[in-house]
């Protein structure tokens, strides 16, 4: 049978893949994509909790509102982060994190 721990484990595996990507990859854009993946993994566990912890026979909608806010904040974060990456690329002509080793330029 399909249990809550199935969904939590799938969400945990996706989260740890994103974490591994953030730590192992050197391209800033791909690091940023892995951050998106981690945020979506948290959304999966929140939605699973909302489906398994019913309120009066209904899905817990407060959890889904939180997911909605997380998606909104993630979209805002992507917009700002990509603008910073473009500005960085204009200044340094690279998106490789090992080539960006000075604090001030």
């Amino acid at each position, binding site marked *: 049978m399909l249990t809550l721990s199935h*969904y939590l484990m799938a969400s945990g595996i996706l989260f740890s893949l994103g974490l591994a990507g953030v730590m192992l990859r050197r391209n800033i854009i791909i690091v940023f994509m892995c951050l998106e993946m981690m945020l979506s993994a948290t959304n999966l566990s929140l939605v699973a909790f909302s489906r398994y912890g019913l309120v009066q026979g209904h899905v817990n909608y407060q959890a889904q509102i939180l997911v909605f806010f997380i998606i909104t904040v993630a979209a*805002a974060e992507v917009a700002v982060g990509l603008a910073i990456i473009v500005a960085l690329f204009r200044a340094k002509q690279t998106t490789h994190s090992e080539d960006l080793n000075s604090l001030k330029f």
Partner: protein
Amino acid sequence: MQLTLFWFFSLLMIAFGACVVVLRNPVACALSLVASFLALAALFVTLDAYFIAIIQVLVTAGAVMVLFLFIIMLLNLKAEERRSVKLGAMLGGGLIVGCFLELLSSTLSTSPLFSQTLPPLTEPVHSDVAMIGLTLFRSFNLPFQVIGVLLLVATIGVVLLSRQTLK
């Protein structure tokens, strides 16, 4: 049936997620992430969260990933050349991820709360979207407007950032 769908979509999601970490071409990474997000939206549907599944497809897999692809193509990024792999970083990353997964699986096996099966839903009065709208505007009106201000600030910030180059 639901178990089959769960395994199919979660394996698809994890496989494409692994592609994002492994592949070298940024465009291939972005497209794998789109596929991973679509499988995640299907998992949301198996959890009866239809509205969340639709905005996952529209906002995250659609708008956000198009923005990523747009930036990748604007910056004209090529596939990374092979650089020397730092063994310490690999080992450290693997260790942290392994510890996290081990902790998660041991936590999930301790409590019987996590092994409950899917409880049946009562027949809803309103549709899913209507219930989310009612909750959003009744109980979460202030956070909703704060999020609106956040989006406005982010938009202004992006315009300012893209107008001037870093000195």
